[in-house]
């Protein structure tokens, strides 16, 4: 009796803990949605739900700036970043993961070192580079500059995946006379689906959310990405922050990301397993 009581209490405590965690993680997003539906001075009142939902805030977001275009910009940048870094990283990972050569370890750690530099420190150098390449105020500047944080990460994770793949496959291909390029593209690539999805998704989120480079390397609102567009939303006068509009815009851009994460959640977990533990 006392044992089952304790078990029940334990289960209760467990669910209570889960409930607290759930509130902690979800509440801010709920609050963002609530705020995005408030009108005028109502945002300054902590009412738990909007009394008269002001859907107009969502309309205004699209009226005040080319927000649809900016979502497309973000999409283009993030997708290009993912494709480019995966393409470069798959080739590099094959070399780093499956071909022993001198200085391989040093190379891997140098690549990791690149991602340890604070973003603000490379900003001005990157800015000169972008101008020198003539890509200022062009979305390509973002695709190129984002390589600095997506490439080390994708190379690392994919290298560990490559190392996991069975040796026999490769040996059989070599016996058949396949060149290394054929081995990568015809033999290994089809096996790497989950790894590519995981690293691609993580790179996508990183590129989608980036703010500082996007702010510095683009100028006209037609070239801006979504985080910058949200960062630049302002009210009628210099100091006013139209909070409800900002929240509406944030909800608009977060929902697709959440859906994306939900669709791929299983893959994220299995992908990170291989990537992290053998890092």
């Amino acid at each position, binding site marked *: 009796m006392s044992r089952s009581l304790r078990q029940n209490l334990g289960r209760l405590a467990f669910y209570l803990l889960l409930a607290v965690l759930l509130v902690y993680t979800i509440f801010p997003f709920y609050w963002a949605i609530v705020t995005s539906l408030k*009108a*005028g*001075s*109502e*945002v*300054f*009142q902590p009412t738990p739900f909007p009394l008269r939902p002001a859907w107009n805030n969502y309309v205004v977001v699209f009226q*005040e*700036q080319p927000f649809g275009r900016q979502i*497309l*910009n973000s*999409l*283009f940048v993030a*997708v*290009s970043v993912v*494709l480019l870094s995966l393409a470069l990283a798959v080739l590099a990972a094959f070399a780093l993961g499956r071909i022993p050569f001198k200085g391989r370890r040093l190379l891997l750690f140098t690549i990791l070192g690149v991602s340890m530099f604070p973003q603000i420190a490379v*900003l*001005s150098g990157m*800015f*000169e580079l972008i*101008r020198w390449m003539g890509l*200022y*105020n*062009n*979305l*390509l500047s973002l695709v190129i500059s984002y390589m600095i944080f997506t490439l080390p990460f994708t190379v690392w994770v994919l290298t560990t995946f490559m190392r996991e793949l069975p040796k026999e496959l490769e040996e059989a291909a070599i016996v058949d006379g396949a060149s290394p390029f054929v081995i990568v593209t015809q033999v290994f690539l089809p096996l790497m689906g989950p790894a590519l999805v995981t690293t691609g998704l993580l790179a996508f989120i990183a590129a989608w959310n980036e703010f500082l480079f996007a*702010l*510095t390397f683009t*100028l*006209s*609102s*037609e*070239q801006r990405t979504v985080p910058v567009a949200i*960062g*630049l*939303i*302002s*009210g*009628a*006068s*210099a*100091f*006013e*922050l*139209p*909070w409800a509009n900002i929240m509406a815009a944030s909800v608009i851009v977060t929902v697709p990301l959440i859906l994306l994460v939900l669709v791929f959640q299983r893959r994220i977990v299995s992908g990170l397993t291989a990537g992290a533990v053998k890092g």
Partner: protein
Amino acid sequence: MAKGARTALLAGLSVIAASWAPGAFAQSLAISCGAVGMELRLCQEGAAAWSAQSGIPVDVVSTPNSTSERLALYQQLLASGSGDIDVFQIDVIWPGILGTHFLDLSDAFSADEIGAHFDAIVANNTIDGELKAIPWFTDAGVLYYRRDLLEAHGHDRPGSWEEMAAIAADIQAKERAAGNDRMQGFVFQGNAYEGLTCNALEWIDAWGGGQIIEPDGTTSVNNPRAVAAIAEAASWIGTISPRGVLSYQEEEARGVFQSGHAVFMRNWPYAWALGNAPESPISGKIGVMALPPGGEDGQATGVLGGWNLAVSRYSNQPEAAKDLVRFLASFEEQKRRAIVGAYNPTIAALYENQEVLEANPFFGDLYDTFTNAVARPSAVTGTRYNQVSTEFWNAVHRALSGQATAEAALADLERRLQRLARGWQ
């Protein structure tokens, strides 16, 4: 999946192709002003009117709303010698910081044209004898009060900061006793940022304690009047002002005041229209006045804010850019902006203009504040201004939060500023 990716890529490529279309920027001017909303709209209309006259198209570039972010972006652009933006809208504290990148405008404008603007702003924008920017619209700190509450509790408008504190304490206590337990006496911008420099300079100026660093470059901040001013402000924290005010910027202060939770608020004129908007809980209950004097023989005050127009040294069409500036800062254009958007003109004559006064009844009352506004020491400290301001607001923040006394904080500040003074002496 693959098909979707290819479609996205193709869509993206066409986006790039569009942005590479040659000649799009070749003959046009680019001006940075505002972000979105009324400020951007007014700027676009003004630029369009000039385009119609001159035949030169103008691109209006939106920039970050946050002043420090905008400055960082400008610095990055200008340091690289970029001619992407021809005309910059700059804060009153920037002529010293960015001045080397701007053209001298004193030859392009006649003495009459320049003389029509407030002297204080023209002086502020003149660095080493060169006029770096033309005044466009001005701003000054003002004191908002709840007219209804002051009347209900039998108080007049305060004649000094000490009186303000006494009235605030009285109304706060009575309102809280009556069940309005979140009522605050006074809210201002107390976060450790440029806004605190503005607020604290106003207190010091009200007590007659100088401008932190005087125009001749001497550090004056450690004087008995300044100490008295900061000590008085420190006494408000936790009594008439909530401790949270030490994290407030403009919008947090307005949030408290506009939701009906404060008797007094120091803010910029922008809060007037928002507070009187139809759905605002305090609509029609607000009064606005100049910031009062403090101490024995102080003076009414308000710190100089506002924005100016400067022409980039790297512009490909400097003459056209100057002409755009002349048009935007003109009497007619400033009048239009004052009537439509309540932007405070920098041309003195507009404060006697009937149409302007009809649209903005309180402009007349604030005329003195605008003409006597105290400037932050940005002209004398030049590129070091941000360091000076940072040291200043950190010292004041320490005093307000009780980590140091006003005496100790200002004495320490004086030492730090004198070490920095190498930069401008």
